[in-house]
């Protein structure tokens, strides 16, 4: 497959601080890649390096099979959308869209054609004569996308484009960006700290931490087979339950409880490893009521706290001394102090080495 963006052995350091370390990443044509991580993980820095807004300390960046490591941002064939929109406030929307093109000495009819196309795609035609101050947040963000669109490039870079919007608008624009991607089939690299955005938009997600990519994979993989405990904990809300114990003879032993590991797919070794380990199970993978009978592992707990959210009810309890949460249907009626029987299938759980925290 032809790659759109390739990052090879990328290093970046400011003085003694290493921000990115020996980073390698290949992004296919038309792929929607999300860089996800908490603040300070290097995701925006990486995006700025791809854009050419930051000089790298080592390694190469290729865009469309061209080595652009030393190229100016405007010569890299990218368009970029910023968190703060970064529109030119004293120019009309049309001026914002055309400023870069005029500067590149494009012929007038071509500029007009591109602006027309972009404003149709983004439905901002009625706004062309207005100034950014007269636009709503959502409209400004569309204009910002339009500014990337008129550049007629293959790679779009988004730097947390929705973080400045309120929750409702964020959800709407998220859908719109997805629709735009379907329509344009451009390569898109999208930085966010919001896992919902990442899960809904991405073809692949790269989870970053400490200047490195922890895991690169489809949303399904990231959610279902987190590569280590950090990723497991980071993805999913409410977050995963962790139980500490030992693996012995194909069972996970935790005090008096023992969980059979039949059906769990071990990684590299393909067989059960022995020793201290952490088991992770998502609250939504724990079942209650009649379904419990069909699960390989069952346990009785007492309800400590309930958090109804409308669609779901989160139940807090304790399993072998560990804080444990279960996601139940919003209709279920449970009360604090009630006894509850839980069950789950180890096949849906994740096991991590207690020391290295890597997936087993």
């Amino acid at each position: 497959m032809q790659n759109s963006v390739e990052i090879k052995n990328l290093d970046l350091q400011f003085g003694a601080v290493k921000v990115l370390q020996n980073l390698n990443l290949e992004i296919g044509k038309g792929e929607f890649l999300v860089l996800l991580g908490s603040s300070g993980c290097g995701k925006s820095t990486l995006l700025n390096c791809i854009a050419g807004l930051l000089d790298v300390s080592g390694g190469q960046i290729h865009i469309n099979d061209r080595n652009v490591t030393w190229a100016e941002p405007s010569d890299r064939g990218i368009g970029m959308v910023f968190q703060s929109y970064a529109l030119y406030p004293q120019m009309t929307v049309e001026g914002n869209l055309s400023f870069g093109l005029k500067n590149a000495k494009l012929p007038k009819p071509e500029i007009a054609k591109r602006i027309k196309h972009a404003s149709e795609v983004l439905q901002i035609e009625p706004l062309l004569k207005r100034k950014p101050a007269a636009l709503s947040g959502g409209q400004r963000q569309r204009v910002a996308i339009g500014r990337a669109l008129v550049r007629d490039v293959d790679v779009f870079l988004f730097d947390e484009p929705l973080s400045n919007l309120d929750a409702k608008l964020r959800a709407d624009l998220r859908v719109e960006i997805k629709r735009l991607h379907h329509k344009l089939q451009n390569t898109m690299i999208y930085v966010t700290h919001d896992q919902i955005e990442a899960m809904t938009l991405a073809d692949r997600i790269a989870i970053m931490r400490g200047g490195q990519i922890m895991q690169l994979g489809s949303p399904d993989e990231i959610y279902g087979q987190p590569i280590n405990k950090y990723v497991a904990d980071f993805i999913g809300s409410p977050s995963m339950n962790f139980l500490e114990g030992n693996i012995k003879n194909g069972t996970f032993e935790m005090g008096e409880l023992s969980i059979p590991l039949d059906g769990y797919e071990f990684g590299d070794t393909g067989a059960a490893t022995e020793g201290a380990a952490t088991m992770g199970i998502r609250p939504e993978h724990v079942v209650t009521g009649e379904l419990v009978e069909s699960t390989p592992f069952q346990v009785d707990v007492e309800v400590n706290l309930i958090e109804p959210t409308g669609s779901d009810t989160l139940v807090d309890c304790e399993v072998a001394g560990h804080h444990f949460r279960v996601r139940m249907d919003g209709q279920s009626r449970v009360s604090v102090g009630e006894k509850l029987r839980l069950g789950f299938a180890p096949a849906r759980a994740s096991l991590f080495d207690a020391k290295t925290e890597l997936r087993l």
Partner: protein
Amino acid sequence: MSSTRPNQLFRNISSKIAAIPMIVTALFVFVGGTIWTVVYSFTNSGLLPRLQWVGLDQYERLWATRKWLISIENLAIYGLCMLVLVFVIGFILAALIDQKIRFEDTIRTVILYPYALSFVVTGLVWQWMLNPEFGVQKVVRGWGWESFTFDPLYSADIAIYGVLIAGIWQGSGLVMVLMLAGLRGIDQDVWKASRVDGIPTWKAYIFVIIPMMRPVFVTTLVIVVTGIVKIYDLIVAQTGGGPGISTEVPAKYVYDMMFQANNLGQGFAASTMMLVTVALIVIPWAILEFGGSKHRD
């Protein structure tokens, strides 16, 4: 605030007490003093103020006095040159310093220190620097350029430009700091966007950044202009108004009339003219800046 409370006057009484100095200053000194001066500018007060109306006599006399006319002309030359140069120099310096340079703090410190000095000190230093017998002129002549002449403070035609040098030396640091604060306040993403768009730096400054800094420019303009109108100490220290009366300015005219010539009426009329000048600048600015804000937000 509820209007049904019985003792309105004593509501929030501590706050009102605390504001008494402000109210007294605002009403008695600023408003009262200004009105008093304007009123007395229509009298023939001499050594002491007296309410003997003479209509516009003082103003007619004022505009027929050569010293006043020269003062106004000097203020116009000094003001215009000062304004243009201080903005150009201040902005260019700020833009240069904003290029992520090394030793930024040192350079900024050096450029701003004259602003910390008294106008008297500034005036005297530049009186010395521009002294033809000892200063720059002598040094350049010493290098072999025997005919070099640079003695602005000693030739009436250009003396005001000698003052201008000192004024710029002292004042451009302030403009630089204000402009730099303005530049630093600009969203860095806008710079990034313009780089992605391939806009050369100088073009980005002219078409994007400077328009975005309009409020800073306007505020700086008002500060600089009010400072220019007030110019007094610098002249007194550097030239004393001379040679002859070639570097007289309105503020000095006022002082001389009030406290040296015992001609209070002239002083009041001249200071009223200064007030009018400032008002012509400040009032439109205030209307633009604060009157329009309701529509913008």
